[in-house]
């Protein structure tokens, strides 16, 4: 039985009438387009598609970007408040909803402030201008003589009207297209942008208010779970369904090809039925041969690949033959998103229309792929973003959305909540691909790099739903009428894929960079925070220290000698100064410090970091007591929010560096719980100091750029401490011990 608390707390979702308000014009999903109208406005021109004045004297601001725990809705609300001149408490954000919001494709690549922020800034500035002009006509005054404060327009002679009063006199006022001609405020006039406003969503999340897709409770909702094959490639041979159907509470067993799921009235019943279903299923012995974990570097290089020259300069001249040539190879493991909450979705098929609530990064692309798999018209499918557990890239969110939709078909009329179990997430969500890197460089006698040759091998880091040529959803490949996977896209620089940040940011007269995009995919991959940047910067910045050592030059001075960009030089110097970097200081076999630099995507934020380590040669444990980072993210819309993101990226990266690798034998993924995939815990987390450079330049996005340089700085610190170098991630105690044995 239930009590009154349930209905009070029941999630009230307005399902509403679903109207596809935005055209689905195809366009590139990757990166900002140059010049002119902000990227996100190109296909979403209607002003009221972004800003709507509500009868209750609030303002609804629509964004196509999703709250992933990064605080984006707060930052975007600040921008709207600033440009509109209304109270912050009047803003209501609506996020990534295919039925009523703009299509901004994916929330990825640290582009939400850049893209959605620019769009909302333009839309808000225009809305304010339109309202002022209308008020001026009403008052018989000139717009430039009017004052606006908190949504109230006042004329010099004392006439007053609120935005809502002005708008109510002309319903078409905000119905025009955004032209991009309304001048937004100058940064020097900002009052709320640039302030560390507390996140609007946290009070609810910290007190147990319904906040997540996991918290949704719809009338008549059933609970579902999936049973996935034991390994990639295994096929369902037989199933004793009857044993499962008779279990308490079971309302449906769904079997379609190799896709298996069960729905029950209660959640624990669904979980018990899942266990029974797993026992009742017999799978073929087939398997996709997996690489040898002990030789990842060699294994990656042996996979069939397409080689793309990412960049080359100075190749018409021969490399100087007097120079000293040095090379090194580096490796990164497969990485799991390892979000604390497994992926979850709610799906409801009703009257020929399906609505899916999902913590996807791309509500619109997901809708397209769902429609294909479900064979439904796209305007009969709605995807509404709801927060989930932390998102660090392409996790199981989209996959579980299809899983839930497939179950919803079997229990038509009833909403279905489907959450993956922990092992589903660890074994089946896309991983950040393993990477192999090789660098070779030539060093002149003056310590300058005169030649640079770089190769990176990895599978595509971009295998999301919505990509052309197939469907990138797990269950779609398992159906009796299966869909093919979309081939990897070719993402040009500077965004790149496995080659993101493969182009060194240093001034190098002669260089060649090649990306070997692996064509066979033994292990399922996807986008993990920063894509290839993490592996590439690990290699480049480790190698810069190796070169500096050969040249006998301090690592800071060596980098500065190859850097012209003043903002890059400034963060490097700021980090070194803050950390108390002393050129020539020797490690003491146990303690050391290292440094690294990255300009994310070569066009994004700048970060330089100093990492201290303590190495215990006996246990092989590396401790990281302190991390100091200087970051230039341009104008910080919300400095504390940005710092929170930068700190988080640092902790995640220390964890990746020291601990993380997806485990597998030659047949299957073996890391399926937190014991098999440990992450950094409280006692291991370093003290972190982040300095934000104070700048008014356009915002550069802070969601990812602190992560890439950490592994290299840590490897450099380890080398500084011990005189030995680790070129393979993670730097586990076993690897450390074997280095000294």
């Amino acid at each position, binding site marked *: 039985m239930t*009590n009154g*608390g349930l209905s009070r707390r029941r999630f009230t979702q307005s399902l509403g009438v679903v109207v596809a308000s935005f055209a689905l014009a195809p366009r590139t999903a990757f990166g900002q387009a140059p010049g002119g109208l902000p990227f996100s406005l190109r296909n979403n021109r209607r002003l009221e598609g972004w800003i709507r004045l509500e009868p209750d004297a609030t303002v609804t601001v629509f964004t196509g970007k999703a709250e992933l725990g990064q605080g984006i809705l707060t930052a975007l609300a600040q921008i709207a408040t600033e440009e509109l001149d209304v109270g912050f408490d009047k803003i209501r954000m609506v996020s990534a909803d295919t039925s009523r919001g703009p299509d901004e494709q994916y929330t990825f690549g640290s582009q939400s402030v850049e893209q959605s922020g620019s769009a909302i800034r333009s839309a808000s500035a225009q809305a304010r201008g339109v309202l002022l002009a209308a008020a001026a006509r009403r008052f018989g005054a000139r717009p430039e003589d009017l004052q606006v404060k908190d949504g109230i327009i006042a004329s010099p002679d004392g006439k007053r009207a609120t935005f809502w009063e002005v708008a109510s006199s002309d319903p078409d006022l905000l119905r025009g297209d955004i032209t991009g001609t309304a001048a937004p405020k100058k940064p020097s006039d900002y009052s709320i942008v640039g302030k560390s406003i507390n996140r609007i969503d946290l009070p609810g999340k910290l*007190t147990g208010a319904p906040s997540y897709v996991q918290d949704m409770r719809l009338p008549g909702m059933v*609970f579902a779970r999936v049973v996935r094959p034991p390994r990639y490639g295994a096929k369902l041979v037989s199933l004793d369904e009857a044993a499962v159907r008779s279990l308490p509470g079971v309302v449906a067993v769904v079997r379609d090809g190799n896709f298996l799921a069960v729905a029950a009235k209660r959640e624990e019943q669904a979980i018990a039925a899942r266990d029974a279903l797993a026992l009742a299923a017999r799978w073929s012995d087939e398997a996709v041969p997996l690489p040898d974990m002990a030789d990842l570097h060699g294994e990656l290089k042996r996979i069939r690949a397409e080689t793309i020259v990412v960049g080359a300069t100075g190749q018409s001249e021969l490399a100087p033959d007097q120079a000293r040539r040095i090379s090194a190879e580096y490796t990164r493991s497969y990485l799991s998103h390892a979000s604390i*909450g497994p992926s979850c979705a709610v799906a409801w098929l009703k009257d020929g229309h399906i609505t899916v609530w999902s913590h996807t990064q791309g509500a619109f692309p997901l809708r397209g792929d769902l429609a294909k798999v479900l064979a439904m018209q796209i305007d009969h499918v709605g995807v509404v973003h709801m927060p989930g557990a*932390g998102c660090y890239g392409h996790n199981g969110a989209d996959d579980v959305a299809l899983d839930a939709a497939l179950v919803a078909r079997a229990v038509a009329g009833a909403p279905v909540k489907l959450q993956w179990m922990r092992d589903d997430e660890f074994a089946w969500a896309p991983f950040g691909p393993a990477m192999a890197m090789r660098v070779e460089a030539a060093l002149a006698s003056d310590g300058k790099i005169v030649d640079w040759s770089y190769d990176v091998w990895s599978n595509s880091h971009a295998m999301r739903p919505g990509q052309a040529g197939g469907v990138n959803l797990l269950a779609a490949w398992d159906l009796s009428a299966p869909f093919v996977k979309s081939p990897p896209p070719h993402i040009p620089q500077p965004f790149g894929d496995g080659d993101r940040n493969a182009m060194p940011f240093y001034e190098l007269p002669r260089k060649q960079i090649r990306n070997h995009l692996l064509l066979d995919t033994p292990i399922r991959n996807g986008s993990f925070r920063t894509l290839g940047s993490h592996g590439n910067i690990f290699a480049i910045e480790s190698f810069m220290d190796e070169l500096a050592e050969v040249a006998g030059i301090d690592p800071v001075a060596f980098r500065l000698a190859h850097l012209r960009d003043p903002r890059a030089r400034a963060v490097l110097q700021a980090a070194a100064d803050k950390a108390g970097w002393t050129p020539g200081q020797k490690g003491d076999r146990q303690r050391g410090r290292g440094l690294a630099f990255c300009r994310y995507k070569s066009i994004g934020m700048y970060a330089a970091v100093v990492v201290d380590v303590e190495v215990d040669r006996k246990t092989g444990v590396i401790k990281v007591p302190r991390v100091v980072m200087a970051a230039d993210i341009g104008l910080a819309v919300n400095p504390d929010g940005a710092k929170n993101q930068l700190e988080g990226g640092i902790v*995640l990266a220390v964890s990746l560096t020291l601990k993380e690798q997806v485990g597998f034998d030659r047949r299957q993924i073996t890391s399926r719980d937190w014991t098999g995939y440990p992450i*950094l815990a409280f006692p291991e987390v370093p003290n972190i100091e982040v300095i934000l450079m104070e700048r008014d330049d356009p915002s550069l996005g802070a969601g990812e750029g602190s992560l890439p340089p950490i592994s290299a700085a840590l490897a450099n610190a380890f080398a500084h401490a011990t005189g030995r170098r680790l070129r393979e991630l993670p730097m586990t105690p076993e690897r450390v011990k074997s280095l000294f044995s």
Partner: protein
Amino acid sequence: MTHRIIVNGQPHQVDAAPDTPLLYVLRNDLGLNGPKFGCGLGQCGACAAIVGGKLTRTCSVTLRDVGEDQITTLEGLGTVEKPHPLQRSFTDEQAAQCGYCSNGMIVAAKVLLDRNPNPTEDDIKNALADQLCRCGVHNRVVRAVRRAATEPAK
């Protein structure tokens, strides 16, 4: 089968099998959102609540185990309007990103402060060692717990 449990000071009659993990009763029968499903294995701490004064992984105890022990969840500590000092200090320090692990952090910190009202940073880190966070807000959480311990009640 009907069980009587006491949650956040209120008795409830729950109709569920005795081996039902407490987590699903709290979430689905009582409509509470604080305790979260994270692993179902007692490894991550997202589902934590206070049962009989002890920090408890509610995914790994059953209705039968709980008996008449008093259960306190995140909701029992405070509300948006009247937050518990820990909920307020987590807000003041912005000690969350996705917030999915925050339930466990706050509840574990509550148990710590009940036992040790003035913990050092190391005490806090050790007390939270088995509470996993993936967004990387650990240092903010430590600051928030210190702040709740040292700031005079408002």
